[in-house]
């Protein structure tokens, strides 16, 4: 494969080619990947921009940069690897890293690129995002020039406060029928009649009643259609289509939504994606690439990446453990009815049918699963205990976080719960003409946990900035159905 754009020095380029060759030998399938060597400042900058060299100016990138540079200065953490889901893929190497680190990062990155290219949840993402981000930056800069930094930035803030109100599954599902063309002449309203013999007709279906029903049905039909017809999860889309926005505002909102959708699959596959990349850097390094002299350094750095300090959830670690666990199960034939129904401890422990299906299985996992389904299907009781998982919660009296359970069911439920909708509440648009006053009605689909009320009120203020009419939110607070309302100046609340 040609490396036209690559700016790598020849020595690293050779290493890249050799790693790629080995990776292909294992069946990895990735796009052309361009590595670029950056000094630590540039690295922090690019990392702060979420991996992209060019993005629009906004304080939150500055905040990220601030954190990254501080943690660099005080030696807390370093940026390990960075790769953009783009075709061709772009990845960065830190200048001055040892050769073994560079090798490890390259191997790791190839794992990610393979994942981006093949995982189903990434299949609808924009693969020209590098250019797209740069375009977004240009558009926003233009708005800033025309309308002023403060105004545009404040509106970006508003949009950011709403940027989780998307429907990450919508690229895959057609949720709404495309609008049927209106029938030219709807048939006249028919009132269903009860069957009656002709002489009984006017008693069983009294004409007065029939007339009244007909009028009612007619009214019903002429009543304006509810908008949205079905509750809408993609609140941002709904606002784009319906809110009274100026054109630059619409553009900003569109950009924020676009980027939110682009990053959604990365949030959906954090464990699996990192696990997959870690699996492959480990495999490639130890079986193919590593020079004997580099072994100790590699082991040291690898241990750092996969460290699971007590009380930590490290997606790299959990991902790679679970993938290896799946590989082992399918290698040894530990699946299917027979396995599931076997409850003899020794038989299970010694179970080995030598099927060797492990590799094939994990490739299937990388193609079809996201974190939620991955955990749901493969996070078993054995795995949970072997790896010492526990769930924790805040103790209301001490304010500290405490281990609250080690039972498999509770741990798994908590884990799944956190992965569902990124651990965020479901908020849907119910009606754009609530109370026939043009108020926006949202509903929180309550699934056991209340909303953070201060945040919710502040977010409603953001919504008001977009919608310009009062915002209502129906939710449940401490077991009681409540409606929160913000009319632009005041927050109010009432029971439902």
């Amino acid at each position, binding site marked *: 494969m040609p490396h036209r754009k690559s700016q790598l020095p020849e020595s690293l380029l050779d290493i890249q080619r050799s790693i790629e060759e080995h990776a292909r030998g294992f069946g990895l399938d990735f796009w052309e990947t361009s590595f670029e060597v950056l000094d630590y400042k540039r690295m922090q900058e690019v990392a*702060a921009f979420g991996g992209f060299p*060019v993005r629009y*100016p906004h*304080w939150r990138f500055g905040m990220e940069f601030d954190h990254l540079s501080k943690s660099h200065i005080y030696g807390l953490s370093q940026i390990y690897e960075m790769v953009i889901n783009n075709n061709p893929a772009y990845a960065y190497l830190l200048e001055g890293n040892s050769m073994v680190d560079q090798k490890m990062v390259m191997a790791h990155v190839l794992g990610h690129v393979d994942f981006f290219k093949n995982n189903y949840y990434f299949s609808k993402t924009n693969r020209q995002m590098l250019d797209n981000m740069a375009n977004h930056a240009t558009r926003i800069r233009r708005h800033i020039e025309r309308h002023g930094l403060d105004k545009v930035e404040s509106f970006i803030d508003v949009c950011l406060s709403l940027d989780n109100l998307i429907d990450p599954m919508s690229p895959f599902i057609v949720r709404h029928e495309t609008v049927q063309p209106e029938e030219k002449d709807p048939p006249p309203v028919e009132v269903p009649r009860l069957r009656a013999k002709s002489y009984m007709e006017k008693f069983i279906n009294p004409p007065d009643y029939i007339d009244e029903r007909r009028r009612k049905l007619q009214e019903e039909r002429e009543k304006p259609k509810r908008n949205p017809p079905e509750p809408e999860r993609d609140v941002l889309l709904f606002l784009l289509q319906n809110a009274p926005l100026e054109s630059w505002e619409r553009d900003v909102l569109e950009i924020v939504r676009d980027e939110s959708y682009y990053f959604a699959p990365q949030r959906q596959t954090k464990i699996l994606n990192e696990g997959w990349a870690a699996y492959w850097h480990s495999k490639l390094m130890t079986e193919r690439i590593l020079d004997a002299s580099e072994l100790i350094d590699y082991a040291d750095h690898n241990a750092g990446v996969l460290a699971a300090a007590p*009380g930590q959830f490290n997606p790299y670690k959990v991902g790679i453990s679970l993938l290896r666990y799946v590989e082992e199960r399918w290698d040894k034939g530990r699946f299917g009815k027979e396995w599931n129904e076997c409850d003899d401890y020794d038989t299970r422990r010694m179970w080995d049918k030598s099927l060797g299906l492990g590799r094939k299985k994990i490739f299937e996992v990388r193609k079809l699963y996201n974190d939620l389904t991955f955990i749901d299907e493969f996070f078993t009781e054995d795995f949970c205990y072997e790896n010492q998982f*526990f769930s924790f919660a805040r103790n209301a009296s001490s304010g*500290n976080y405490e281990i609250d359970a080690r039972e498999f069911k509770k741990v798994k439920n908590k884990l799944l719960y956190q992965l569902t909708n990124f651990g965020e509440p479901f908020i849907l648009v119910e009606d754009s003409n609530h109370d026939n006053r043009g108020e926006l009605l949202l509903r929180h689909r309550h699934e056991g946990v209340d909303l*953070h009320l201060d945040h919710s009120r*502040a977010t409603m203020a953001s919504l008001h900035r977009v919608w310009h009419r009062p915002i209502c939110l129906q939710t449940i607070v401490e077991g009681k159905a409540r409606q929160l309302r913000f009319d632009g100046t005041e927050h109010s609340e009432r029971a439902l």
Partner: protein
Amino acid sequence: MALRIDPSHNRFRDIVRGKIKQNLRKYISNGEWLGRKGKDVVSIPVPQIEMPRFRFGEQGQGGVAQGPGKVGDSLGSAEPGEEGKGKAGSEAGNHVLEVELSIQELAEILGEELALPRILPKGKERLITQKDRYVGIRRVGPESLRHFKRTFRQALRRQIMMGNYDPHKPVVVPAREDKRYRSWRTTPMPQSNAVMIFIMDVSGSMGDEQKEIVRIASFWIDTWLRSQYEGLESRFIIHDAAARAVDRDTFFRTRESGGTMISTAYKLCAKMIDDEFPPSEWNIYPFQFSDGDNWSADDTSTCMEVLKKEILPKVNMFCYGQVESPYGSGQFVGDLRTAFPEDPNVVTTEIENKDDIADAIRAFLGKGK
């Protein structure tokens, strides 16, 4: 090297410093930037702005992690389950980084972040920060410092060596290279001449939250001034209806109840200054924290009297921080402002919650008195 991120970074810092976008201030979390661990070390969290979003409340917190431990074991107050390594961030995580720093470094950061000017040394007659001593001889220098004897001795020596010295006609003419000058060295004098007097109202109306605010504010003031003056002294006074001098530990821990007579504290403060800290030798900084609820108008007028006659003439600056309390009337800050409307040495500020602490410190120390 200029970076593309610089404008965004500056923007962020300006927001954090409160220069722009006041509407975002309420979303800035500074975490607990107090926490003196051991002797000289403290953890400094990083300021963070979290945009409000629809998200779960308290109940929803917690998660899953790995490691040993029994059910019920505490994991500490910080949220565990943080990811260790930085992957290209697709989301703004809740990174609370704990940085351990020495107090000195911290005070510098504080000075930078809060944009505090350095506190200026007082006039020479009161505060000698450095002293010049003549300790040696140099070959160059101003004529006024010429060392007459040495110069002639040098000239004599030269003339003898050159053989043009006649003992019968002892004329010594110094040449340019014979000249010797006195030289001096600047020695900083050890300073032990600033004192902070912290006064806290511990009456029944000051709750734990109010005290926490006082504690944090005092800590930072203490830290900052310590970085400016060596050998800084601190004194602590607590008062309800009566005042007493206490040690640091008691100052932060006591909770008393009862009425409030601020004048008692002022009198004690004045006495303390007279007995221990003559203003000719000391920079004196009283910091008073109260919820602003005083016993009576009579007492308040006594306060103003004492303040005017006995305290203000002697101190560099008098700082009053009023902590918002659900019980106090908050009257006192207004009284102070009325009594000393123009006096630049009286600094008053109101602290509604922890977020205002930074503003209060800036108000107190930003003047550089």
